[in-house]
């Protein structure tokens, strides 16, 4: 569906992205991850036909962005990090304007607007002035304008930016609701959002792609497959690390004494072994103070990939 080949964009002498190559199949939901300034927005803007690349090619359904920008724009819904909203318009008139801009026929406009409002839970806001809406609702209007013409591809740049935790969950549900109808490329700083929403990840660092694949594929390629756990017990019992290794699914267990006189075990296992660990530690007569999942796997993958020098093997 989308084929990106050796895509580069230079701002003067500085390369924002260099030789990016990836492809996205129809119906996939792909997460685009990277630190600030990594080149995510530049890439998304090129895919959205807002910016022209310095070299390389981007093809959508075999149409090249530089040669067929108008055809491609009809097939794309784009939500930038700041939703492009006219504050003096009502939600309904704004969405109708966006639909007409994307060549939705006059007779279908009202139905498409209603559909987009339903999907983004904006039906009750149809006659509200955009300038008077909360940030969360504005973000939804931004998403609604991106889907109002039923594009084949949705490009979403930080759709949860600036939202509170409840709104982030709502946005995640909205995004999950779009699955199946669109091919989605989504950038976000919220790793949990990406982890729970996307089928596949593209990780970009200093303008270069440093990793791509599903979370499990990336983890196994980095030797990080498995679950991480942290268990804290009262007292100093570092020898229990060896006992923990007797649990077959545990690959690694390290004891770490703390200043409070407790011991923390950092455990890496091939499966969820919380129950076995709890039984073993309690059975050994320890006071089990805490047992929780360690740092998220995606967080660990992301930190690993974005702290390597660019060009290093993923």
């Amino acid at each position, binding site marked *: 569906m989308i084929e990106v080949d050796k895509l580069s964009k230079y701002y003067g002498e500085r390369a924002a992205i260099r030789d990016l190559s990836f492809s996205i199949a129809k119906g996939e939901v792909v997460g685009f991850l990277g630190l600030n300034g990594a080149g995510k927005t530049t890439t998304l803007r090129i895919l959205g036909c807002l910016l022209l690349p310095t070299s390389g090619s981007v093809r959508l359904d075999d149409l090249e962005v530089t040669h067929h920008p108008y055809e491609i724009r009809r097939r794309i819904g784009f939500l930038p990090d*700041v939703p492009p909203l006219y504050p003096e318009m009502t939600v309904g008139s704004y969405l109708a304007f966006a639909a007409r801009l994307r060549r939705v026929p006059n007779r279908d406009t009202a139905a498409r607007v209603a559909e987009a409002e339903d999907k983004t839970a904006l039906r009750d806001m149809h006659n509200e002035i955009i300038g008077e809406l909360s940030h969360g609702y504005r973000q939804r209007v931004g998403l609604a304008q991106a889907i109002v013409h039923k594009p084949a591809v949705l490009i979403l740049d930080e759709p949860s930016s600036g939202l509170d935790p409840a709104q982030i969950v709502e946005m995640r549900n909205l995004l999950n609701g779009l699955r199946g109808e669109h091919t989605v490329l989504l950038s976000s700083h919220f790793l949990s959002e990406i982890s729970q929403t996307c089928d596949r990840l593209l990780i970009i660092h200093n303008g270069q792609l440093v990793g791509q694949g599903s979370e499990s594929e990336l983890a196994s390629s980095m030797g990080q497959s498995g679950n991480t756990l942290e268990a804290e017990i009262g007292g100093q019992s570092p020898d229990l690390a060896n006992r923990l290794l007797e649990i077959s699914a545990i690959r690694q267990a390290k004891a770490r004494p703390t200043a409070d006189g407790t011991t923390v075990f950092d455990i890496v296992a091939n499966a969820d072994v919380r129950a076995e660990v709890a039984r073993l530690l309690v059975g050994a007569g320890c006071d089990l103070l805490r047992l929780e999942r360690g740092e998220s796997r995606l967080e660990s993958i992301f930190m690993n990939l974005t702290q390597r020098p660019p060009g290093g093997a993923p």
Partner: protein
Amino acid sequence: MTATWLIARRELSAYLRTMGGYVVAAAVLFVNGILFNAFALGADHSRLSTEVLSQFFYLCSGTIMTASVFLSMRLLAEERQMGTMVLLASSPVRERDIVLGKFLSALLFLALMTVAGVFMPLLILVNGKLSVGHVAAGYLGLFLLGSASLAIGILASALARTQLLAAILSGGMVVGMILLYPLGSLTERPLSEVLFSLGIWHKHFPPFQAGIIHLRDVVYYLAVTYFALFLSMRVLEARRWR
């Protein structure tokens, strides 16, 4: 409905839904009224109706150029400032549609505003006579001058990052084009002739003011409008490379 007209309609409704448009219209009508009363009608009752009418168009030419600067400053710079340009730029519309749509909306608003002041020349009928041809020529001149000034304003709005900068740049360009004529009088021929011809006011507007329509003046204003709009489109296209 074409994309040009779609954008023009939205923009025109933005003028009518927000304070900005009304403030400019009210200020123009107020200033025109005061100036007309003070200078065109004046205390000298011996003047001919045609002189009063000519004076009215002379006064309006200044306010229409000023209004054009304020109406056009927001057209593209505000879209960029607020991030709404992305909506247009990611839609299947051409730069031509964006620039023409914006221009048409501002021109329509300017025309509405100018026509709203038509009661002033009609006041001449109280004590004098009115030549319909003179009125039509004067309004055509105002329309063409406004069109050229707006197009220059749109170019400034395409170049500038903020509305304030756009207003300063557009004001500077319009004043610069007015000053080409006085500058011409300081130079030798043939440069002076070129500068006289390029000036936006001294050579090309007074005939309209006097009720005379010269094809060369009409062509001049249309050419300035076309050239400024063409450059604006090119500026927008060039932004895709940045």
